[in-house]
């Protein structure tokens, strides 16, 4: 979707403001939101990383820009636990459980956390899928504007690039985000000149590399 999250190339956002000796979390609640999200994801079903990103992208644009990073996570968590069927919206609004049916075992215990943190959840798939493109080949990023989730940023659409590597077969986010299947396909590293993306004022020596799935690309 052409959302405000797709920020590459936008103007007016101000200067980057690095903070000296920045803590991992600035406030206690940020740490709790992070941990709650990890625990709920790890322990409950019907979840994948693309669906999680899509949820944040669908926050109202003005809200998205107003919120801090972990405020977005908190908003997403409230939406997702209802969608997952873990709690009802009424329970969130009332702040207390509706029934007496508390679970006897939590989604995740402290003893399970080290394994959860170390778990590799690769979206690479060991399946045979034909690669449409080869390293060295010129390609064009498709000029598509899907209303759902996509990882093809607006700034690259319609632009010419060169395949520099085939990363293997990976889950396709556009379908996975809506639980419409993994549609595994080849993922490539594609190199674009800054001039192709941004015009003649860009440096000749600047390049932008994007990871792009087969379905994002067309032959030149």
């Amino acid at each position, binding site marked *: 979707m052409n959302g405000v999250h*797709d920020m590459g190339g936008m103007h007016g956002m101000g*200067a*980057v403001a690095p903070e000296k000796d920045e803590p991992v979390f600035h406030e206690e609640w940020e740490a709790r939101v992070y941990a709650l999200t990890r625990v709920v994801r790890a322990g409950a079903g019907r979840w994948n990383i693309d669906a999680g990103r899509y949820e944040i992208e669908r926050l109202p644009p003005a809200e998205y820009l107003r919120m801090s990073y972990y405020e977005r996570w908190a908003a997403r968590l409230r939406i997702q636990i209802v969608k997952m069927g873990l709690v009802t919206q009424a329970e969130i609004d009332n702040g207390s459980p509706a029934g007496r049916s508390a*679970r006897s075992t939590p989604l995740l215990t402290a003893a399970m956390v080290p394994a959860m943190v170390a778990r590799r959840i690769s979206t690479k798939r060991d399946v045979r899928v034909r690669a449409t493109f080869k390293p060295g080949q010129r390609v064009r990023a498709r000029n598509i504007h899907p209303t759902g989730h996509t990882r093809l940023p607006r700034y690259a659409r319609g632009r010419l690039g060169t395949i520099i590597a085939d990363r293997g077969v990976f889950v396709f986010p556009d379908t996975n985000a809506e639980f419409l299947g993994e549609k595994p396909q080849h993922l490539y*590293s594609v190199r674009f000149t800054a001039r192709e993306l941004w015009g003649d004022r860009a440096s000749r020596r600047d390049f932008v*590399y994007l990871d792009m799935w087969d379905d994002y690309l067309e032959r030149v």
Partner: protein
Amino acid sequence: MGNAKKGPVAQDHDHDHQHQAVPSDVALRVKALESLLVEKGLVDRAALDAVVDSYEKKIGPRNGARVVARAWVDPAYKKRLLADPTAAIAELGYSGGQGEDMVVLENSPKIHNLVVCTLCSCYPWPVLGLPPVWYKSAPYRSRAVIDPRGVLREFGLDLPEDVEVRVWDSTAEIRYLVLPERPAGTEHLREESLAALVTRDSMIGVTKVSPPQAGGRA
């Protein structure tokens, strides 16, 4: 609400973020959510503590710094790191969520790599921990791809025009780690001392690693 969302910007205070005498609205709402999930038996508070502890104390940029230092002192390791990064990083004990499929980008005097995620906040957790606020912020995400040299200057790095700049937008589940250049004058240093020089920012690619006497942020 205002305090929490304003990115910390103060330069000359030890302690940038503002403490709040009264819990903010968002803090109260998160507390209520946690209590609800605990009361429903879904969430164990000790598990939450364990997750926070992992990312505050165990998983952070010191991990990546050890990878970089090893690559600087051990040419065979560096070769493996560039050829099969995920496995080479796991050799040192670092793997897990958001580091499943790693790519290492080597900086040189003629090529400078810089990593961004314009669409969200993708970042290699096992080697760098959770990303800093600026990395997830609109200014960095919007500008890194269109004005990388301007962004680098704000970090104090003014690259000569003949240096090639490569910006890597993390649009998939590949996670990138920059292998910065080993600074001059460190030939005598051992691996541990070298690791102490390697900063988080140098592994994102927004700075170089400073030699010890230059007083760089280590």
